[in-house]
């Protein structure tokens, strides 16, 4: 096979220049003529009944052009899973701080803010549920959704999404929304075979993506009655379908423009609260309305990372073989389901996608609480459960006297193995990733400690992330007389780089320079369907569709060129805008000769536009919840870290980070590196800094002063931060590629925890490993040793 010229090369991103010039447009950069600014009035209570709303003063305020309340919106519950949320409180109940209550559109931001203050609302405060135990209780202090059993499943989900309203846990426990169970083998016998049984409970925190760009949209209804939206979203087409469901109309009534997105990380999936609110304000005002969320609104009203409590009971043989695993998970979904109801199941994939476990039992329950909705954030439950599993295995290794690398490798799933859910392992270089980081970080080697309170330690962990199967992407490729091609697609571009990687693949397919490829995206009116960028799916799905589109375009080119050259079409190839006979390249013609009228029209078909589509095959689960293909593949990233821990203060410093990822064939190695580096640091935040805090449902830190995310000072120096790759090309992927966006985070928490343990001999079991938490655990250890 000829050596690849563009794929597999670190070619600078095609959108980098625009971005460094400051010209790349994000949602808030757009202005539309006669645009108004919208602001949402939000509940000051975590749980309350609305007794009265009076908007009359606001309606008369200067500059105000529309005020809406629940009576102005479609009176339907909506969601991406179980439909449980109103656009504005049709049922007069608010269930979380900052729940939308009413909204205003005015000429200026100040006029809108002042109008909000003129809206009078009387609330009756209700008792709250603000923790997992109250959420799970049979007799909780409050019931958030008394009508839960009458809720409907969002129709596009209803084929794959199972919800058993008769399940006793769901029926008897008023705030439990969803349960998920797995049973494989014989758990009791498994524990009998075990030489070591470990049981520990791990907890993770509510945390936020903190995308640099907050959520927002501009909405207007044009003269044809079409709702137009410019929106910061990972899923323009899914938003469209979701809005069509809310409005009970056809998706074609919505046209969604999706510019560059300033970070998504899963938090911009699906219809967002402010979209239908902006639409209704625009409808009432008869003018476009822009709503951009503040940082506080982003923290509290967009979906965040889900707190998960995992009680993990493992049985190991003395040689380290994991023979039994019993899991009980409780998850805090927040006030409304959204993707959280899906996560109750999908979080479990993190526990089953790496290791072989012959006897496995799991029950997971997702509960409602009067807290921000928690669901998809980079990993979607996988980092949360990996936090538990990758520490437990280390604890086992220590107890059994086995090397922590060896115990993992011993239990790894090999290609072709069947995992706990019946999934056949499609592609893995997990072993190489682990070995690489262990070697590079010097795992097990003696560390020279300095005098004083700082103690150094090293640790590793392995993380995975699946990509959901059963979703589609469509790409078109137009060929021009000068040999240029124009790709049209709708993967999101939120930094992950799919947009640029597609250009590399198109350049490769046509044998043309990167400068000859134009890539266009982001308008449902003119660019083709794509389910969007989530579940680390875009390079794989959109990439496969691109390759198919390129081949379709080339077939059209060769169908015209063949007769002209007197050569069968299947003996032709193209490169640099020339079509030539493979066996005799001097028999050739330029692409321009495929066209007539000076290049206006192709000789056949009028234009040369290739279309390609790709839907990843899926096998739906059988009655026992088993399926050989619910996910397309797992991607893996292992991390090795060296930390320094201050025994007197609980502070953790990251001295060295090594990440090694398996993302199949990297289309652009440097772009994959930066995904590993970025995932590592986002993981550092989740591991030691980030926790959304509440007191009786009142948020304590919805801002960057009190919720700290990593700055450059929280990272190792550049020579001590290394991203590497060990790849198992996946034959179903474009040029062998898998996904990379999420696996690059999953293992950071436990890698740091394992390093901390290596340094100071304690684990916090809860995330984040804040200074206070670690300090307390260190004090307890000191007290115990004193005895």
């Amino acid at each position, binding site marked *: 096979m000829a050596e690849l010229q563009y794929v597999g090369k670190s070619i600078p991103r095609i959108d980098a220049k625009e971005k460094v010039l400051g010209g790349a447009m994000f949602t808030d950069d757009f202005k539309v003529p006669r645009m108004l600014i919208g602001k949402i009035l939000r509940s000051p209570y975590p749980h309350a009944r609305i007794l009265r709303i009076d908007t009359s003063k606001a309606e008369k305020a200067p500059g105000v052009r529309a005020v809406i309340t629940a009576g102005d919106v479609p009176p339907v519950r909506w969601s991406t899973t179980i439909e449980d949320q109103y656009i504005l409180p049709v049922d007069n109940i608010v269930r979380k701080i900052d729940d939308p209550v009413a909204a205003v559109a005015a000429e200026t931001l100040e006029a809108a803010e002042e109008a909000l203050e003129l809206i009078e609302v009387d609330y009756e405060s209700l008792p709250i549920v603000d923790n997992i135990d109250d959420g799970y209780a049979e007799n909780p202090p409050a019931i958030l959704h008394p009508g839960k059993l009458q809720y409907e499943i969002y129709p596009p989900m209803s084929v794959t999404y199972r919800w058993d309203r008769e399940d006793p846990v769901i029926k008897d426990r008023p705030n439990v929304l969803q349960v998920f169970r797995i049973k494989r083998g014989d758990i009791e016998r498994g524990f009998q075979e075990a030489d070591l049984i470990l049981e520990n409970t791990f907890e993770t925190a509510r945390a936020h993506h903190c995308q640099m760009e907050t959520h927002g949209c501009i909405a207007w209804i044009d003269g044809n009655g079409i709702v137009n939206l410019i929106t910061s979203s990972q899923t323009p087409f899914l938003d469209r379908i979701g809005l069509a469901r809310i409005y009970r109309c056809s998706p074609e009534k919505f046209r969604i423009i999706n510019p560059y997105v300033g970070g998504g990380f899963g938090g911009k999936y699906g219809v967002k609260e402010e979209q239908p609110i902006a639409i209704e304000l625009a409808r009432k005002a008869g003018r476009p309305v822009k709503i951009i969320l503040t940082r506080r609104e982003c923290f509290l009203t967009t979906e965040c990372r889900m707190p998960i409590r995992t009680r993990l009971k493992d049985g190991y043989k003395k040689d380290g073989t994991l023979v039994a695993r019993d899991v009980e998970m409780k998850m805090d979904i927040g006030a409304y389901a959204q993707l959280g109801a899906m996560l109750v199941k999908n979080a479990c994939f993190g526990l089953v996608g790496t290791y072989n476990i012959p006897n496995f039992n799991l029950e997971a329950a997702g509960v409602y609480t009067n807290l921000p909705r928690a669901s998809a954030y980079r990993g979607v439950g996988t980092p949360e459960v990996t936090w538990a599993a990758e520490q437990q295995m280390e604890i086992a290794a220590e107890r059994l006297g086995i090397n922590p690398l060896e115990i993992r490798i011993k239990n790894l799933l090999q290609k072709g193995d069947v995992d706990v859910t019946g999934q056949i392992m499609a592609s893995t270089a997990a072993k190489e990733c682990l070995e690489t980081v262990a070697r590079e970080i010097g795992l097990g080697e003696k560390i020279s400690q300095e005098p004083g309170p700082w103690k150094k330690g090293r640790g590793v962990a392995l993380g995975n992330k699946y990509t959901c199967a059963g979703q589609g992407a469509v790409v078109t490729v137009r060929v021009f007389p000068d040999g240029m091609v124009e790709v049209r697609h709708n993967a999101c571009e939120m930094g992950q780089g799919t947009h640029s990687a597609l250009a590399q693949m198109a350049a490769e397919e046509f044998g043309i320079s990167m400068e000859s490829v134009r890539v266009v995206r982001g308008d449902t009116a003119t660019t083709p369907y794509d389910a969007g960028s989530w579940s680390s799916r875009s390079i794989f799905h959109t990439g496969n569709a691109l390759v198919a589109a390129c081949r379709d375009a080339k077939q059209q080119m060769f169908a015209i060129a063949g007769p002209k050259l007197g050569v069968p079409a299947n003996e032709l190839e193209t490169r640099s805008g020339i079509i030539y006979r493979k066996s005799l390249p001097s028999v050739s013609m330029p692409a321009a000769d495929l066209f007539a009228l000076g290049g206006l029209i192709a000789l056949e078909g009028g234009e040369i536009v290739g279309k390609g589509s790709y839907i990843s095959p899926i096998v739906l689960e059988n009655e026992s919840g088993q399926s050989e293909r619910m996910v397309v593949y797992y991607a893996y990233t292992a991390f090795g870290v060296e930390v320094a821990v201050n025994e007197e203060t609980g502070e953790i410093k990251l001295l060295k980070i090594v990440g090694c990822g398996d993302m199949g064939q990297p289309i652009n190695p440097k772009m994959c590196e930066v995904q590993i580096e970025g995932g590592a640091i986002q993981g550092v935040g989740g591991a030691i800094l980030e926790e959304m805090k509440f007191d009786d449902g009142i948020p304590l830190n919805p801002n960057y002063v009190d919720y700290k995310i990593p700055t450059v000072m929280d*990272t190792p120096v550049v020579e001590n931060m290394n991203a590497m790759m060990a790849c198992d090309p996946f034959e179903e992927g474009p040029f062998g590629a898998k996904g990379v966006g999420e696996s690059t985070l999953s293992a950071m928490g436990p890698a740091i925890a394992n390093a901390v343990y290596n340094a100071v001999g304690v684990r916090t079991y809860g995330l984040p490993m804040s200074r206070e938490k670690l300090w307390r655990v260190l004090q307890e250890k000191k007290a115990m040793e004193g005895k």
Partner: protein
Amino acid sequence: MEKKLLKLRVNGEDYEFYVEPWHTLQAVLRNELGLTGTKKGCDSGYCGACTVLVDNKAVKSCLVMSRQVHGKDILTVEGLAKGEELDPLQQAFIDGFAVQCGFCTPGMLMSAKALFMENSSPSEQEIREALTGNLCRCTGYKKIVESTQLAISKK
């Protein structure tokens, strides 16, 4: 309150218009002048996405009342390139893969630019300190620091 006259030189061009006293420099740049390269990430002085230069010093424009900089010289990301010629920092950020979603990029470039105006050959530690006030959620910072180092040699 009545609007006040504001005179600014932005990216070498003089502007004059009337603003509300409470309008920040960030709001004026984005809304009055349409210079949307300067971003709004937190509107509270923490994330650094709004960083611009005022008289060659990096400031968070969301914390500066526009009238505070009346008559001063402002440089935004749009003023870095000279016609078709990119600033060495801009070229380095492209070549060094320092750009992912691009939202922090203008602020990072401006903070780095301010550093270079005081110190044409900063150490890695000095670069890190200069960029402390600029958050990035995508890249993990390594390639941003490396690209800034790369720009030193390109000058």
